[in-house]
């Protein structure tokens, strides 16, 4: 995860950053953007496949965090996965032409993944890509259709012609493969 910038994203720094944003410090927002715009933009671009639309989601996600920094609880999770989930969900909303919510209400995500420096981030990215590459192609495609295309299991089954049960199991085992790689 190129979180842009040289600062590491350890929990202590995240808490300090969010505290500055809550206090109305615009320079904190600039730091936050430098650290996390890469992941937000990357996810949005992957979902939407359009740079202008991805830039709009990037803008929306950071602006909402500026307006409502209380939405993120640093005690319960880490910023990077939380922003990634928000970026994914907002992008799916755009893709499906659903109105965006005013507030960011996703729960904090608590992963045990070490993202505290660039080397760790690079390793984590490589590991995720490695896990996905080792999944059977059908399973990887199913997982990506659900996550990056926002398709429901019924839609995936209809599109691929696979039984519903197969789609469900592929998604679960795909997620568990990721968990196992990082456990």
């Amino acid at each position, binding site marked *: 995860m190129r979180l842009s910038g040289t600062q590491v994203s350890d929990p202590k720094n995240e808490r300090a950053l969010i505290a500055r944003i809550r206090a*109305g410090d*615009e320079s904190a927002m600039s730091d936050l953007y*430098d650290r996390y715009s890469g992941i937000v933009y990357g996810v949005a671009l992957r*979902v939407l496949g359009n740079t202008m639309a991805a*830039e709009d989601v*990037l*803008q929306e996600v950071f602006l909402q965090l500026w307006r409502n920094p209380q939405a993120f609880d640093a005690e319960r999770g880490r910023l990077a996965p939380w922003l990634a989930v928000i970026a994914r969900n907002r992008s799916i909303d755009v893709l499906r032409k659903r109105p965006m919510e005013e507030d960011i209400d996703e729960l904090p995500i608590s992963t045990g993944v070490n993202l505290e420096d660039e080397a760790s981030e690079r390793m984590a990215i490589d590991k995720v890509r490695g896990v996905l590459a080792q999944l059977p192609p059908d399973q990887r495609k199913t997982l990506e259709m659900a*996550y990056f295309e926002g398709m429901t299991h019924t839609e995936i089954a209809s599109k691929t012609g696979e039984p519903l049960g197969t789609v*469900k199991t592929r998604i679960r085992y795909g997620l568990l493969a990721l968990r196992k790689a990082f456990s």
Partner: protein
Amino acid sequence: MTQHAQYADALALYALGALDDQRELAELQAHLGTCGECRRELEALRADAALLALSAVGPQPPQRSRERLMRAIEAEPRREMRPKSRVVLGRLRSRWLSFAPITVALLLVMISAALVLENYRLRNRNVRLNAQISTEVQNSAHARAVLEVLNSQTTQKMVLVAAKERPQPQVKTIYEEEKGRVLLLASNLAPLPADKVYELWLLPASGAAPMPAGIFKPDANGNSMMLQTMGSDSIAAKGFAITIENSGGSQTPTSPIVFAPAG
């Protein structure tokens, strides 16, 4: 998850927002309301799903995005920067200063009590909602079972009549005025030519003209079932009647009534 393996696949879908089977969704949500183990698994699955985002990292946004965001932030209504805490002790009289810890303690007690009450209220609300969901799920399952029996091609439908009498055609209507829905159950109906159908009419209590309430044809045994939504505001009915109409139905009755309200 070992004790709740039946929810394992649905939980993974739910974590991605990909579960769209409404029955399964309702059951899972009801279960999550009472099962901490599954809630923890859901949280873990969400974290697993978040890892997927890492595979998309790579492209960087253009510089203009940064400038656009910072311009937007500057244009937002300004939030007060909290001043650094700086207590000027010299401006406080010592006797007021001595009350400060007590005041703070009292405030903390009041806030704690309010939080405890709020927590209690939310827990009660949660319990009530879970109970409602469970009841809805049970009601839905019961209604589905009834409909399955009624609709099944393999069930045996029998009408019991007084001994030594020929079975008579019979139609029952069950009308839910508030939702404008009528359920029709018919038996021993005479067969119709291919170009004819039975048409049900709602007879408004106001005395207005009969309103079409659905068309139906009996099966080979003379049985039929129809659930029809009238699609308009609730209409008080004094009864229902049935005529025989051309295939496709009619907006007004064109033939004599073959079934009328009993009594």
